[in-house]
């Protein structure tokens, strides 16, 4: 086993780092303060291949290993956590199109998504169905050549500013087996958007409710087969969780590097505060947890790449651990900066606000524990 990066990975990380430093970092504070969704920057990201990282080559994606993608998201998030998180959601939705749409639909939608000319949202959560997503009630009723979608999705990232919605809706019985997934044009008649939510973080991307009132969706826009929608949604999230976890790791790494530099420079009590062992130990713990988190994320990504039977469990573990650890490192970095850490002129409170939601969405960290425990306690299943 080899823990070293290969030449491809180093080259991908180099590009992502350059992009993060030149195109994201200089604007992240402004996008946060002004709540700007940087569509032009996303298009630039698309030109460089960052919008179809793991989507299949058949629809214009790069089909990269998830491991490599996790490294790319980590590097990008050093520039702007929130924008990178959106890019990761777009990649997830685009991958779903490549994986589950018919060749015709994939061919029609894919190139614009992979190049970032069009942007996508993932619509699972409903006001009455969050953690218990399988209880969703948005309905899709077949009517000749179309399905008619009715219901509401809540907290949808990018909604109102994106072109394609991947919507999970009920076509059959209660529970996960009655759910189907659709690729829906966001400008379809009958779709309306709620107000832009005012949020703690993730301010460079809008979050809105999406309402469907008898929205006609051509039958060929069904992803996979009827009844496969929940499985498809979860397959998307397996990767999504790893990506979001990588965003926490990258942000925390950025926070740690700055905290390290600050403690070496800042003098109190007549010497650099890095001289105090209390703070040295904090830095040591931050670095240790961060390395652990990164390795877990990469392990989970690698399990996904080889289609390991326990890939979902590893993804859940990595997401739980890395988003908690990442948040803690950001909080410690803020603390090490003293009063400066709390001031908006510096990025630390933004890191904290942006990574906070990673512990809630794409399956809350409690739900990650539910998944891990279910696997662990599964009758006689071997230990992982």
């Amino acid at each position, binding site marked *: 086993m080899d823990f070293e990066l290969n*030449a*491809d990975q*180093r*080259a*991908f990380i*180099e*590009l992502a780092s*350059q*992009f993060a430093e030149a195109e994201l970092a200089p604007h992240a504070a402004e996008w946060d303060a002004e709540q700007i969704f940087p569509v032009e920057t996303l298009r630039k990201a698309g*030109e*460089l*291949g*960052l919008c179809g*990282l793991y989507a299949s080559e058949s629809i214009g994606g*790069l089909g*990269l290993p998830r491991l490599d993608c996790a490294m790319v998201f980590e590097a990008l998030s050093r520039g702007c956590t929130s924008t990178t998180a959106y890019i990761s959601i777009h990649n997830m939705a685009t991958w779903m199109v490549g994986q589950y749409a018919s060749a015709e639909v994939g061919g029609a939608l894919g190139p614009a998504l992979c190049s970032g000319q069009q942007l996508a949202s993932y619509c699972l959560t409903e006001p009455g169905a969050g953690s218990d997503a399988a209880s969703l009630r948005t309905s899709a009723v077949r009517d000749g050549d179309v399905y008619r979608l009715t219901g509401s999705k809540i907290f949808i990232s990018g909604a109102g500013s994106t072109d394609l919605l991947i919507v999970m809706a009920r076509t059959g019985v209660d529970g996960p087996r009655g759910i189907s997934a659709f690729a829906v044009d966001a400008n379809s008649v009958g779709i309306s958007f709620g107000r832009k939510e005012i949020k703690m973080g993730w301010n460079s991307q809008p979050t809105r409710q999406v309402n469907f009132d008898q929205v006609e969706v051509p039958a060929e826009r069904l992803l996979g087969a009827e009844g496969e929608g929940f499985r498809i949604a979860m397959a998307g999230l397996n990767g999504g969780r790893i990506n979001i976890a990588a965003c926490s790791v990258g942000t925390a790494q950025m926070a740690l590097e700055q905290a390290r530099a600050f403690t070496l420079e800042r003098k109190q009590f007549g010497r650099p505060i890095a001289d105090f062992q209390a703070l040295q130990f904090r830095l040591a713990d931050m670095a240790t947890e961060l390395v652990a988190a990164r390795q877990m994320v990469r392990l989970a990504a690698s399990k996904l790449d080889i289609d390991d039977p326990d890939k979902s469990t590893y993804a859940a573990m990595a997401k739980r651990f890395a988003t908690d650890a990442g948040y803690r490192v950001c909080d410690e970095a803020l603390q090490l900066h003293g009063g400066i850490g709390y001031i908006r002129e510096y990025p630390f409170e933004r890191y904290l606000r942006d990574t906070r939601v990673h512990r809630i969405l794409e399956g809350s960290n409690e739900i990650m524990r539910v998944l891990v425990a279910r696997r662990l306690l599964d009758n006689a299943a071997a230990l992982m």
Partner: protein
Amino acid sequence: MKILVTCKRVLDPYVKARVKADGTGVNLDNVKMAMNPFDEIAIEEAIRMREAGKADEIVAVSIGAAKTEETLRTALAMGADRAVHVVTEDDIEPLGVAKVLKSLVESEQPGLVIMGKQAIDGDSNQAGQMLAALLGWAQGTNVSNVELDGDTANITREIDGGLERLALKMPCVLTSDLRLNEPRYASLPNIMKAKKKPMDKKPIDELGVDTAPRQTLVSVSEPPPRAAGVKVASVDELVDKLKNEAQVI
């Protein structure tokens, strides 16, 4: 026309250089390496010439150890057509570099060589000039603008106190200054495609060129730490210090 472009693998410009404890050089273990920034600019210029229809092939050349291949892959991902890796574990001095390049120019027959004005590790600013002299070609160093017009390269150079415009007879050697252009990113699809582009590996010994060092490295040390400043009481005192202590006026 074929363009030969050089690219050197150097310490990443954003990484703090640390001197080895024994004073024999800069510590390159476990530090990030990158393409010399002036060479990125040189490659970008060559790509723009090809895009403008003034060149049809770009050959990227680098001299260095095994990992240098990655720097050449970056050049290929940016848009160079093929690469030549002259393999050596040794540090080659500028004259040796110029001789190696001369030998490649003789086999490749490019109409133009573009190099960085200097590599940011040694900062010698010599290889381009030496190559032009060895070839007997015209040279345009520290170039901030280039227009190709038939057999002539019309260039603008940044010199002390202004800009110098020259018309060079081609083939010639150009070295890039910082403001020549802004290099493009090597996109992910192009990084993938670069893997399939040809890369020629030539052990340096096979070139039959004498690259033996002519200089001896005595020792490498950190620059002295900046001393604390002093407050002056009056303009007269300041002028006096500038004159007599700093001796700058």
